[in-house]
């Protein structure tokens, strides 16, 4: 199938959009991206899906500006993807091997899902091979690895306690390749498409934070950019999902919103073509782009509260304290001289 060459206007539009979304890029980056994207051939991408729910792919299919079709026809050659490719079985695996052979050292591997390592990795297999095996073979000649979603980035839900499959993130297995994490459950489509386009335009991965997340999309907390932030400053909070505060759109901090400690692009990039994001829909942020978010206590416990059962702790500790205090007082009574005896009067510190 021959696709028409993308119009320069489309490139300009897309590149300017990416440059504005990737706030760390200088203004002149749009022009450089136009030139680089126009001159480059489509980037070979091999997408591996391991222990995942397909939410990350769902997110990608809902990308806008560019949408998935633009991405596939203009920018990348998606040579292998379980869910999206037409081929299946041996034909699909052959496509993957061919992509590796034809693009040695140049292709990008995108991984969604964590990798099970317990019991020899048998909890998830593709074409009879463990995920770890397929990953090692595929990444061997890759130019870069992009871990998409919280499962690939941190282990995610499969790694939640007690982690029965021994799930690990991609970064635990791949240490000798440029690797970037795009966490989120699922990640925002901009972040996936933008990172791919950046690599295509500049031949390297974008600048990252300490958790290997692109700063352009994960440089600020959701709280920093939340449109409900003014209500936080004014001390106006919703106390329930259907109270007056919720109807007025007040801050969701007291309902357990994790926006203040969650680094992501949701509040500005939003979802479904920039229509909304969870907080705008009335639910607090779950912190899904942070590691271990599933095991960090209740989604509905405010950040300033303890994650343990404090009520039982207070009752138990107070009872123990009362017991010790009563014992100490009893001992003191026994040691004290009988009332009326001459001696010290501890009540007022004077001599009797």
């Amino acid at each position, binding site marked *: 199938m021959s696709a028409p060459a993308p119009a320069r206007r489309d490139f300009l539009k897309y590149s300017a959009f990416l440059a504005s979304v990737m706030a760390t890029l200088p203004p002149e980056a749009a022009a450089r991206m136009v030139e680089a994207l126009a001159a480059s051939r489509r980037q070979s991408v091999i997408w591996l899906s391991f222990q995942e729910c397909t939410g990350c792919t769902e997110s990608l299919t809902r990308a806008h500006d560019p949408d998935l079709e633009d991405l596939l026809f203009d920018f990348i050659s998606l040579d292998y993807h379980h869910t999206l490719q037409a081929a299946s079985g041996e034909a699909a695996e052959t496509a993957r091997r061919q992509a590796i052979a034809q693009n040695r050292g140049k292709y990008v591997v995108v991984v969604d899902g964590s990798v099970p390592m317990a019991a020899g990795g048998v909890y998830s297999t593709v074409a009879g091979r463990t995920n770890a095996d397929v990953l090692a073979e595929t990444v061997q000649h890759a130019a870069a690895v992009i871990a998409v979603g919280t499962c690939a980035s941190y282990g995610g839900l499969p790694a939640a306690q007690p982690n029965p499959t021994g799930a690990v993130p991609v970064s635990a297995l791949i240490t000798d390749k440029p690797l970037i994490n795009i966490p989120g459950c699922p990640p925002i489509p901009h972040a996936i498409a933008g990172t791919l386009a950046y690599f295509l335009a500049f031949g390297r991965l974008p600048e990252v934070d300490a958790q290997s997340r692109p700063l352009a999309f994960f440089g600020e*907390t959701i*709280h920093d950019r939340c449109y409900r932030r003014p209500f*936080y*400053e*004014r*001390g106006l*909070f919703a106390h329930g999902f259907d109270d007056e505060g919720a109807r007025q759109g007040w801050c969701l*901090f*007291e309902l357990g919103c994790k926006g*203040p*400690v969650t680094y992501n692009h949701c509040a500005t990039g939003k979802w479904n073509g920039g229509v909304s994001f969870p907080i705008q829909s009335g639910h607090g942020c779950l912190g899904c782009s942070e*590691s*271990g978010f599933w095991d*960090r*206590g209740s989604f509905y*416990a*405010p*950040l*300033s*509260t*303890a*994650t*343990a059962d*404090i*009520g039982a*702790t*207070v009752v*138990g*500790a*107070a009872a*123990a*304290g*009362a017991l*010790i*205090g*009563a014992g*100490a*007082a*009893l001992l*003191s*009574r026994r040691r*004290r001289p009988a*009332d009326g005896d001459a001696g010290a*009067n*501890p*009540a*007022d510190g004077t001599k009797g």
Partner: protein
Amino acid sequence: MSLLDFARGPALQAAIAVCAAGSVWRLAGILLQPGRPDRSPARAGALPAPLGALYSIVRRMWPRRNFVQATLFTTVNSYVFHLGLAVVVFGLAAHIVFVRSLIGVEWAPLPSNLVYGAGVVTLASLMAALVRRLMDPVTRLLSRADDYLSWTLTAVPVLTGLMATSHLGARYETLLAIHLLSVAALLIWFPFGKLMHAVLFAFSRGATGVRFSHRGVRL
């Protein structure tokens, strides 16, 4: 486990357990001591014991007239500090939900910026109290490690809370974790040092008030 997870989990739980056990232990140890009945007849016009206690608790919230000049700084600074701290502790929404999680009681929060301002005043007041303590030869001579430790464990949560609110010096989650850990340290020390005066002042003043009013001493 991240620093914030540790602070919100085991650290806070252990600190609250120590604070609750220690506070109840000290209170029980004091209140369960046998009373020493004063067998002397009460002075004519002496207040009943509960009123004498209450009068002493309230009356000692400000100095006698002849001591006003000498204690002016301490009195004013103490009021500024305690009121500021009360606004910070009981006015910020994040603190109110913490209290709610402990005892199920809540109230309307104050605007965050107002609480922030109160926090700055509180910290300035704490600094003034420390400078005064160090500059005055008498208070310096009387000060022990407990005094400086109690000051530090009070000042650090205020400072780290301000830093967390203003995102100053580190990422928010790190600042929040440090703030929670400093609160945990404060809670652990609370029952064992002079910070316990927050609870014991009423009992000590009340006991003095009962004794003095019985003997006809005018407070």
